[in-house]
């Protein structure tokens, strides 16, 4: 494969699976500018790591590992966060027909609660929301499975506390 066809194949796969990256940005940023900034950094890191992607694992499995690593470790938060737009009112407005106002408010509060967690806790929450099992969560973070479970339970407790002070 020539270098331009490799690039094309990468861009196509990323374009098709971009939701995964948006989800990571959703948890690790709180405004549109920062979201785009992190998305871009993850894209650059994915492209850099693409030569090592052998296709023996799924593109998404590989991409979410690189994406999480970028969000937690590599990404330097830029100071361009002056125009703080509440995300829930812009990009992620949930369809009014599906949710009643009270539920929507509760979900909004839940997201705000998750925003208050630290970077590692957010990673655990992200993988939980993505239905990853504890073996994979533990392996991705480099911790033991038992401790991943214990930590997850603590996070649930912490969220409850944040929401019901």
């Amino acid at each position, binding site marked *: 494969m020539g270098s331009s066809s490799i*690039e094309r194949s990468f861009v196509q796969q990323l*374009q098709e699976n971009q939701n995964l990256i948006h989800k990571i940005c959703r948890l690790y940023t709180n405004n549109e500018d920062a979201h785009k900034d992190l998305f871009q950094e993850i894209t*650059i*890191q994915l492209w850099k790591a693409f030569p090592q992607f052998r296709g023996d694992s799924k593109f998404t499995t590989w991409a979410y590992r690189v994406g999480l690593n970028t969000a937690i470790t*590599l990404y330097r938060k830029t100071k361009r966060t002056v125009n703080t737009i509440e995300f829930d009112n812009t990009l992620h407005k949930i369809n009014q027909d599906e949710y009643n106002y009270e539920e929507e408010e509760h979900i909004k509060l839940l997201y705000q609660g998750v925003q208050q967690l630290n970077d*590692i806790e957010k990673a655990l929450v992200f993988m939980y929301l993505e239905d990853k099992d504890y073996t994979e969560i533990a392996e991705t973070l480099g911790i033991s499975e038992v401790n991943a479970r214990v930590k997850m339970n603590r996070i649930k407790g912490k969220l409850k506390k944040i929401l019901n002070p």
Partner: protein
Amino acid sequence: MDELDKLKNAWKKEENTYPKFSEKDIYAMLHRTSSSIVKWIMIISILEFVLWLGLSFLLKDNPGAKDLDSLNIDYITTPMSVISYGIILYFVYIFYTRYKKISTTDNVKTLMQNILKTRKAVSAYIFVNITYMAISTIILFIIVFNTHAGIITIVHKFEKDGHLLMFYLVAFIFTIVFIGVFVLVMWLFYKLVYGMLLKRLYKNYEELKKIDM
């Protein structure tokens, strides 16, 4: 149903509400420059190597060093130069091999460890350099005091006046203060630059270690 499961339901419904970047947008992103901390560590580390190398050339060319040449102490300055270049080569090699190990496809903890190890190679380099500088300053200090004609005359003058001890004390204190100020400036520089760069990484690394304790 607990809070997180409620969030999971909402999370799944959100699936189609994310912005969609076109292939053209993604192409454009590929060619932008990264602002990752690994890139910054690489840049700062190269600057440090260059700075120290530049400093050693600068010190070689100054009048004081030329004065040293006239003392014919090649038997000590040549091995010292060899050692200092050896130190640079060794640490550039260590830095490079560690840097190559940094991979975003490793697990979070391993990635953090590899970044910190790379960073530590440069810190060790600076530490070895400062130690080397302190030791070589003391060695040259002793040699110059014993062989430099001009200084021997001054020493004799102080000896005659009965202030020899005072002279040595002042010279000693001056050297210590010079080294002390130098180390302090380096330390402050480190605190500032790496404090800003690695604060979040250290915090997250500690958090991961805490989970596994």
